[in-house]
Structure formats: structure tokens, C-alpha cells
């Protein structure tokens, strides 16, 4: 498994506009350094994040997916979108194994607008963890099937 050493995972981050995206902004403003592996997709609410988006991301070759929203219970700008995300992503994590994807590749985090540090830490941890897991098994399957 030596090829894992040079492996730089690609992570897709779905961030809600009001808290988590603002948290990522604060990481920027505070110049908190984290690995450049994440690509952020802004949505208005974590409740908008369809499990299908996550699956598509894995299909397109993402090695990890982060879903981040406002803290439970009441930070959500849309009252309860975070609860919806919690239910959907928790279920999806269970289902992932059946697709042959390690559930650790999908993370759900609550990150507030003042948690720039937390955002950076999550990205750091996730990058590390996925480096250990190696590339998304989908990608390898595709390579094989070609």
C-alpha cells in the first residue's frame, strides 16, 4: 500500500451559508492554515443537502465528503434544517457501507460562524484520516473496470 504515501485526497465540503460557510470564512480571515484538500460547495442550508449529492460526489471520485451546518438545536437560520441534515446524513452513513464505501469518508459536523479553528481542525483531521484510508474504492473499481 505504498502508493498511499503520495496520495492527496479530494474532499467535497457542503457548507451551509449561515454558520459553517461563515466559519470557513473566519478560518480565512484568521489565516488558520489547513491542508488544501477540500473544495467547498455553498448551499443555503444543510437541510438542502440531498444524500444523492453525497453519493454523486463519491461517484465522481471524491475521497471524502464533509457536510457542515449550524449547531443543534437552535442555531439553524431556517429553524430546523440542521435536524433534517442530521437524520439524512446519519442514515446515509449507515447505507454507505453497502456501497463499499467506508462510513468514515462522510462526516457531519456542526460549525458555527465563530469556529474558524474548528473548521480548520475538521479539515485537517479528515484529510489525515482519509489519507490513511486511501483513495475512494469507487475510483479503483472504475480503473479496474476500464
Amino acid at each position: 500500500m505504498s502508493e498511499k504515501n503520495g496520495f492527496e485526497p479530494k474532499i467535497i465540503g457542503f457548507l451551509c451559508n449561515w454558520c459553517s460557510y461563515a466559519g470557513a470564512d473566519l478560518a480565512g480571515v484568521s489565516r488558520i492554515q489547513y491542508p488544501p484538500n477540500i473544495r467547498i460547495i455553498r448551499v443555503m442550508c444543510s437541510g438542502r443537502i440531498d444524500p444523492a449529492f453525497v453519493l454523486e460526489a463519491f461517484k465522481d471520485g471524491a475521497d471524502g465528503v464533509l457536510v457542515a451546518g449550524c449547531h443543534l438545536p437552535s442555531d439553524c437560520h431556517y429553524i430546523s434544517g440542521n435536524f433534517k441534515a442530521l437524520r439524512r446524513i446519519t442514515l446515509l452513513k449507515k447505507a454507505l457501507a453497502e456501497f463499499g464505501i467506508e462510513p468514515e469518508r462522510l462526516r457531519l459536523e456542526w460549525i458555527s460562524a465563530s469556529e474558524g479553528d474548528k473548521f480548520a481542525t475538521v479539515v485537517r483531521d479528515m484529510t489525515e484520516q482519509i489519507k490513511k484510508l486511501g483513495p475512494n474504492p469507487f475510483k479503483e473499481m472504475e480503473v479496474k473496470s476500464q
Partner: protein
Amino acid sequence: MANQKIGAVLVIGGGVAGIQASLDLADSGFKVYLADQAPSIGGVMAQLDKTFPTNDCSMCILSPKLVAAGRHPNITVLTNVEVAGLNGEAGSFEVKLRKLSRYIIEEKCNGCGICAQKCPIEAIDTFNEGLSNRSAIYVEYPQAVPLKYKIDREKCIGCGTCYEVCKAKAITYDQKDSEATLKVGSIILAPGFEVFDAKLKSEYGYGRYPNVVTSIEFERILSASGPYGGLVLRPSDGEIPKKIAFIQCVGSRDYQLGNNYCSAACCMYGMKEAVIAKEHTPPPLNAKIFFMDMRSYGKEFDAYYKRAQGEWGIQFVRSRVAGITEDPKTQNLFVHYVENETPKTEEFEMVVLSVGMQPPKNAEKLAESLGIKLNAYKFCETQAFSPTETSKPGVFVCGAFSGPKDIPESVAQASAAAAKAMEVIASERGTEVAVKEYPPERDVSLEEPRIGVFVCHCGINIGGVVNVPEVVEYARKLPNVVFAEANVYTCSEDTQKLIKEKIMENKLNRVIVASCTPRTHEPLFKETVQEAGLNPYLFEMTNIRDQCSWVHMHDAKEATEKAKDLVRSIVAKAKLLAPLKKPLINVTPVALVIGGGVSGITASLSLADQGFEVHLVEKEPELGGQLRNINYLLEKDSDPKEKLSSLVEAVTKNDKIRVYKNAEVVDVYGFVGNFKSKIKQKNGEEKEVEHGVVIVATGASEYKPSEYLYGKDPRVVTQHELEEKLASGTFEAKTVVMIQCVGARNDERPNCARICCGQAIKNALKIKETRSETEIYVLYKDMRAYGFKEDYYREAAIKGVIFVNYDDERKPQVKAENGKLLASFWEPVLNEQVEIEPDLVVLSAATVPNPDNKKLADMLKVPLTKDGFFLEAHMKLRPVDFATEGVFLCGMAHSPKYIDESIAQACATAARATTILSKKTLEMEGIVANVSEDLCSGCRICEYLCPYGAVEMKDKEGKTVAHVLEALCKGCGACGTACPTKAIIMGHFTTEEILAQVKAALVEVKI
């Protein structure tokens, strides 16, 4: 003839109250000048970590308001400004302002921050309460509005470095203080408060012992963006404390210091800080709060208190701390206090002083230059029936300047002050505001996507790390991109012109800016593309500063690659963007007010005075509600009976207000701007009215106790009944026992009824006034005489009223034996059970919600609390709004409260309602859900999921399908995600757009 009135308002103070007042005014057709002494708005709330009782992140909920105020076309934010003088009268003032120099040309400063990075001098960071340093050129905090730097002239040595590094040429060292005169119709004061200087309480060792900190310092310590990154550390050695003491009432309820008043918010914030400290501390934390009375009197506050004790395991000690000493070796602290008459000492690793609120430092100067009166404590003087009016007509007040208070009350008062300010100049609505005209929108539906990409250097903030020319080159080669270029600052005025030119020249029909965050800059660019005839939703943004150059500073190559990925990803989305219409809905400029108590009447009058029609519906045969039971006030500043009759008269005489007595609202249909309701009158007649807003003011009433022989023995009465006796002169008793918290703060009703402590003090003082020999015992759990009411509590104690504390384990008992009424209770000072024979037992009974609330809540599709009161949209920042647009809430229907608080909320609903009623049409956000009716299976999942009630089911050719009420949809997208047949399309965040964005982020395109 009086001076011509002016449709503009000056708001002094840019904290959360000033911001709220400004937004309400600006949204109602008035020009607003929002002035603050500080270099940015936000006030103390910006410094807080979390807010009680929901533990919401303070910055998360405040920053959208900051941005809204900063970007509002009708609000001019003036910072570093002092008031120098006032001329004129209500409706037509001339205010002289002094603008202190920033040494920065605000129009040019982009807030890029390179100056602060290069500045060689450090200064104390006051935003972090001195726990860290900042540069001599600075912004107060990263989210500051306006994001304009300022030179700290005290610290700056004048080396000229910032001038040299500033690419925007915004630094000017010879800027002088300047004066300006503003013409406004009314003025709102919201200068907030100062925290008490804890050094004055020298026995607590603040300033001498490093591990004694103030609560505001502790807020910064708790904050994830604070000095310690959110980890609780001892300032003496950076260790995580295992044991923290919180000391309440530091600088409050302290007669010797001259601050006899209660600061009203500290009990709750003390608890909150203890709770959050536990959350932020990895090893188990022992937190103990030393308090005199736990004043958790607000909505749902006692439930929080209970959780703090139970779930969170905070310990509470009822004691005033006598002093603190330090172990010089460990720098631990010994807290000396008396509990149950026994002196005790306990060692802690850290102590937090819950410091009180003081009037702002410049209060006297401000009062003098404006000609308004201050009270004995130098807060702004107001009266119970006019809580937002100063002694000078046309000048209004809100927030902590009129007395210590928490955020929701400040916000409600702010809206109230806005309503009062509008009333003065209602005739001038719309005269001072500019309506922006855009050119006709170009139809791009038949055009191939032609994308223009503008990549920002942000001075050197982006360009110093990311290879911007390379990104531009890359963008040019992406599919559908027909134009790409780099700008030094894409947000500068001249670049806006340039973007418009490039749109025209290149026939662009999609525009992308790759720069900073859309959270602050998207509205600007949307406006720009709209000015060039493009639909604003054909604009997109990607953030290559906060997500690339600033967070991968040491890896220019990777940062550049990531920037390219982000651009490629957003180009893929932009290709699919569709123009969206901002739905316009008509507004019926009429209000329906449900409930004719003091709240309903006040709201109706405020709206009618501004020229709006009102339907006021009262269930009872008479107007007045609970005010009819009130004979005199604790504050004694006005006669409630007289006020009631003048209010009723004003309503009756006002031809804009249609009063329905003995009537009920039986049906409400429609949505914001367009409601239709049925009012059923006594005679059975039903009348349908059309209206644009609903104000719920259904009140509450005194609980009829089942405890303490009430109803069985005529010598046991409630406070209301006692008041009636006192007013009618039928009171007679030598010994009176008052029992607090009857029917409140128990299992059935866990929350405090808020007004009974004040009632007890009021009635006790009234008894003492006429029959000073009467013995009065007040048996209480916590005397919640918050704010200036503390003065009356003290007065009662001085006049001989005996206050005896009890707890749930040892409740007082009342029995009748041989015709005698006996009351027994535990006397904690004597440490024994006492039995006395009162002539009268007075029960301070809870306030219970209106039993009709449930019915009305269902009709309006709005929620109730567990206790049965109405639940507002957000406990902190939207105290009088419901989540359902166009429906508002005030008075005791919200929770128990005093008259001045009900009046403030009532006026607040008027201001909030005016933001809708003052418009002919409402322009809604274009990002809404749309139902593809052919695909819809009518499963109703979306209807159930929508927190705003924006989805309704309708019949379409015999099939039930979902229909989105665009007026109510907030665009969160939760319904679209849940829809099993994918029949719901989320505007601007369609599934196709998001998936294209994801795919392009991951997969290189072949160029």
C-alpha cells in the same frame, strides 16, 4: 407654520438595538443615519460567545444583521462619530455631529488588512478586553461592519509603513476631525451601556489577582475566536481550571457603591457562562455560582436554571461573597462567604465576576447636548406608559441606556422606538429615500451561456499567494467562458464600472467573481450586473481568498491549483444558472389586531397614527384587558386608571381603528400582505376583513390558585384582589403574609411569572403608606426585583417589610384552625420554624396564558411554548416576530410582563408591521422552491417539512399537488431534498447546478 418635517431619522449607537431600529425604519420608507462612536457597529453583542437561553452563537445571529445594516440603501452608517449639539424640534431637528479622524479614506479602504499585517506596532486589543494585542492599525473584529481600518493614534509612531503597503491608497495621515450637520425628523438613542469597573470592588481582587476575571473577559475567553481559542485557561499560568466560581451582583445591587439597581441580565449570563465553560473544558469542571437572588425571570429562563442545576450540574450558593484572597503560590483563590449564618471559605482555581451594567461614559454629555433628562443612576429617564420616550419630544430611547436589560428586550424596545420615531414623521414617509431604478432586463433565454470571469488580486491578499494571472489564463480556456481578467480590487467602484462595460462589450450573460466571500460581497456584484441589464441570479461567486490564499499561505502551488478547481467548479454551475424573478406581492395596508388590552390598543394606535387602517378585535365587552385590574404602579409615575381611559378614548375616537368588542377571530386565511379573516361578533354576525398583517395581543390572566386555602377561606386572596381592596379602601389587617410563586416555578408551570415580585412589593409599600404599623411578611424563593425595581425592594425592607426566603423542600404552610388563620414557615436566619397568625394571606399567583391561544395558534399556523404562551421566531433577535411572515406578537400573549414591557413590545409590533404595510408591493427573495406539478405525487412530505408553512396542497385537475407560497418560502431547500419524486426545484441551487459544481470540482476538464 411649523417647520417642514423631515423623513429621516438619526440613530445614535450601533449595537444590536440601534441596528434593529435602523433596519425597521429603513424598511418602512425612512432615511436612517446610524451613528456610532466606535469604528464599527455591533456593540457588546459582537463580543459575546453564546446567548441565553438557547445557547446560540452570538456572532452567527448578529452578523446577518450587521451586513444588512451595512448594505441597506436607506441606511448611512457613520462611525467614529460624536453628537455635538441639537437644534430644532420634533419633526425637524438639526444635529451637529463630530466625526473623529480614522486616518483612512473610508471610500477607498477595502478592508484587505495588509496594513495591519505589516504594522510594526502592537496595541492592546480592547475587543478582546485586553487579553491579546492588535496592531496600531486595526479593525475591531474580523466581521466588522464597515470593514474599514483605523489608526490607533495613541499607539501609532507614524512610521508610514501602512501608507506604503496600502495598494488602495486609502491611508491619509493628515485627516482632521470634521463636523457635519444632519437634518432629521426624529432621533433614537441606543448608546448601550458600559460594564462596571470591577477594580472598584477592591475586596474581590480584580486587577491584582490574575485569575479573577470579569464576565465580559470570560465571554472572550469562551469565544472560539477569542484569545484562548475557546479553551478556558487561567490567565496566571495557562492551565485549564477544574473549579470556577461565578460571583453575581458585582457592581449591581450595591447601595454603598451607588449602584443599587439590578443589572437584570447577569443571573442568566452567569449561568450561561458556567454552562458553556463546562462544554468548553475537557476535564470535568466544577462550577459554582454565588448569588443573592436567582433572577431568571424571563421567558423560559427558569427552565434553563433547572437544566443548569440538573443536567449541567452547576452548583448554586445563595450568598453575597464578602471577599476574595489569593494563595500567592498557586494563585488559586479563596472565596470568603457566609452561608446559613456560618462564615465559609472555599478554594477555586478561577473566579469570574458577573459585572453589572452602567450608563455609557458619555451619558451626561449626550444628555446635555440633546437636552434630555437622566434618572438618578444616569440612565435615560422614561415612564411606564412611554418606555421609549425621553423627556424631549421627538427623541426616543431603546436598549440598555434606559435601564439594564437583556438582548430580546433591547431589540423589542428598538423596534418600539422605531415606531415612535415613525409616528412623528409618518407624513414624510418615502421622501428621503432613493428608489433605485434598473435598466430593463435583457432576455438571455435563447443565448448560449457566455461567461465572464473576474479574478481579484485583493491587493496582495490573493495575488500574494495565488498566481492570479495563471488562474485568469485557465479560466479563459474553460467551456463557455468568453472573457476573463484580473482586477486589483474587484469590489472597488471603478471595477464595478468596468464589469458593466465588459458585460456589454462581450455580451456576457453569466458573470463570476473569484475573490472573497459571497456573504458580504455578493449583493454588491448582483447590483452591478443588474445595472448592466442582467438578471441578478445570473451572477455567481467563488471564494479564493478565504479558501485559498489565506489558508494555504505557504503553498502557493496548491493554493493556485485549488483556486483553479474552484473557478472550474463555479463555471460549471454558472453555465446552468437561470434568471429568477423576485416575486412581487400586493399588500393590503390594513392590520388585524387580536386582543384589546394595553398591548393591542397601543399597537393599534401606533399604526393608526401612521395612517394605516386597523381592525381591533376584543373578546370581552370592554377594552383594557388586565390593565383594568391595575390601580396604581410601583414606579408611581403615572395613574393607570387615567391612562386606561385616555387610551380607550383615543382608540374609540380614531377613525382609522374599527373596534369589535365581544368578538372573536374565527378564521384566518392567506399570507403576508394578503390575509382574509372572519370576525364573529356577539350577535353571531360574521364579518370578513382583508388585511396585510396580524398582531397577536391576546394577553394572559392571573392564576386562580388551588393552594393555601384559596377559595376556601376568604382571608386568603391574590395580589390582584388585595390591590382591589387597597384601592377601594376595604383593606384591613394587622398582619399580612404574602406567598410568592404560587402556581409558578413548579412542575406544572416551570417558569417564573415575572410580575408577582413587583406586585408584592408594590402592594406592601401601599399598605405601609397608609398603615405603617401593619406587619408584612413576604415569603419568597427569589425576589426578582430586576432593574430599577430593586430600589423599591430596598425601600420596602427599610420600611419594615420582612422578606423570608423559602425553598421547595420547606414550603410555607397555611391552615385554618378554630377560626384562626395560621401561617408557618422556616426562618433561615433564626434557623427555626415560625408560626404566625395573619389576618390576611396574599398569594402572588402565577400568570397563565389565554386558554384560546391553542385555537388561534392553529389558525395562524404559529407555535406555542410548552407553557401555552406564543413562541416567537427567535428568542433573542426576533422577539415580536413569528416565523410566519406578517404575523406578530406582543404583550402577555408572549409571556408575563409589566406594562412598560408590554407597551414596548406592542409598539415594536407596529414597527415590524409597518415594514410590510408601508409598501405597495413586497419584493420577495427570488431563491424559492418551485413545484413541477406533473411530477408531484401529492404525498405532502414537503408540506409537513416546511417550517414556514409555505407549502400548501391544491387541487389540479382532480389531482392533489403541492403549491409553494412564494411569499412565505425562505429558500432553505429542505423540501426539494425530501421530495421523493424530485418534483421540487430549488431556485439557484438546483440539483443539476449543485451536481455540476461537485463534478467539476473533482474532475479536470480537458482544455
